[in-house]
Every structure is written in structure tokens, then in C-alpha cells.
């Protein structure tokens, strides 16, 4: 059975979704990702959907679930590369994916992750003082 590969990029993990998703694949991804976050002590996850020509409520829920699971494991998720037609359709469908951070592409996504981590480090240091 095929799986969606997870790449390690420094302290972050990158998941590129390119295939038509069905629920077995989605569940497998959630499982693989949570394990990978734990194993690597990853602080951030990038989900790249720039190759997806369609995102329905099932995939939307999967993304929201991944974001939630990552958060519990103290990692932040950024969704990148949503195509314009997909964004327009999702909005019309009534899905706005609140609570999921977004960025235009992988590069911006990583910048956002680094910024957020730096900020939380500052908070931690502030409290220490």
C-alpha cells in the first residue's frame, strides 16, 4: 500500500500531498506523522498541497485533525500552496479551516515556523527572567 512520504527539513517535517487521497491513506498519514513528530522532536510540520486540484470536507477535516494532533505534541502546523480555485471552492463550501496557519509556499511556511518558534522562545526567556 502506498504511503505519503514525510521529509525531515531541519527541525521541521515536510509532507507533500500529491495523490488523490482516500481514507486509508489519510489515516496512515496521521499515524506516520504523529510518530515522526515524536521520534524527531519536530517543532513544526509543513503540509504542502500545491499539487492538489481539489480539497473536499474529508481532506479539510484531515488537515485540521493533523494540526490538532501536532499541537498536542507541541508542534505547529502550516498549510502551504493552496491553489486559487481550491480556496474559492472551499470558501463556498463553507470551510475556512480556522486554527490552521497558512503560507503561500514552503519557503514562506518555514519562515513563519521559525518566526513563531523564535517568539515562543522569547516568551519562555521572558518568563525565566
Amino acid at each position, binding site marked *: 500500500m502506498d504511503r505519503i512520504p514525510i521529509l525531515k527539513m531541519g527541525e521541521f517535517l515536510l509532507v507533500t500531498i500529491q495523490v488523490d487521497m482516500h481514507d486509508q491513506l489519510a489515516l496512515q498519514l496521521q499515524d506516520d506523522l504523529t510518530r515522526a513528530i515524536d521520534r524527531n522532536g519536530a517543532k513544526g510540520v509543513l503540509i504542502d498541497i500545491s499539487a492538489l*486540484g*481539489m480539497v*473536499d*470536507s474529508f481532506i479539510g477535516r484531515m488537515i485540521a485533525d493533523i494540526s490538532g494532533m501536532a499541537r498536542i505534541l507541541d508542534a505547529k502546523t502550516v498549510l502551504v500552496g493552496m491553489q486559487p*480555485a481550491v480556496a*474559492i471552492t472551499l470558501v463556498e*463550501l*463553507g470551510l475556512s479551516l*480556522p486554527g490552521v496557519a497558512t503560507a503561500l509556499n514552503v519557503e514562506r511556511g518555514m519562515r513563519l515556523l521559525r518566526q513563531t518558534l523564535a517568539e515562543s522562545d522569547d516568551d519562555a526567556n521572558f518568563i525565566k527572567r
Partner: protein
Amino acid sequence: MQTSSSGELPLGNEHDIVLGRQAVRRMTQQQGFSLVDQTKMVTAASELARNTLIYGGGGTLKWAMLSDGAKRGLRLTFEDKGPGIPNLELAMTDGWSSGSGLGLGLTGTRRLVNEFEIDSTVGVGTRVVIARWK
């Protein structure tokens, strides 16, 4: 109005949903839909196909490519012999901002198409017909 071609696909498992989506994509491209309209139709089909499988216990997708003079369209019918939807009116009023992903998502799907019709009888089954025109 004429049907230039039509056919049927099974919706018995997840793989069928993937195949159904791909078929709908091809058909919308063939009818010359804009990219946004293609995406809307494919997404609506994905939602309804999933409903047919998960709530209806499996069923069929019937498709028909339409033409009305110079206008081109696509009509899809999702049918199952499942438990049916009790309280159809309630299911159709989940509002715009309830993106929690729960429920059948029918009002959202309705916004993606030009024509939407649903017929459901408890204990008999459900049929949803959608259509989009270029």
C-alpha cells in the same frame, strides 16, 4: 436539451470515489468548464459520493453530459438504497459558517452547483441530482 453521452459508475468503496472524481474532472474539462467551475463540480461530486458510500452503504453515480443549444452542462445523480435521511429539512440547514465537517455538508455542496435536487425516504434510499452549466 439533449444528452450527448451518459453512463454509470459504481460507488462501492473508497477507490471508486477516487475514480469517480477523476471521471468527473475529465467530463467537466470536456464540457469546457472554467478551472474554478471544474473544481466546484469535482468537489461537490466528492462530497456526495462519500455520502453515498458512508451513509448510504454504497450506491451508484450516474452521469450525463448535456447540451442545450450552445450551452454545455453536466448532470450527476448519486443513488443509494441505504437508510435514507430522516428530517431532510434539518440536514439542509447547517448554515455557512458551520465548517466543523460534521453532518452531510449538503447546504455547502448545494452552493457549488447550479441545480440541486434531493429525494430521500427512510428505509428506502436517497437520490441526489446535481448539475452545472458552462
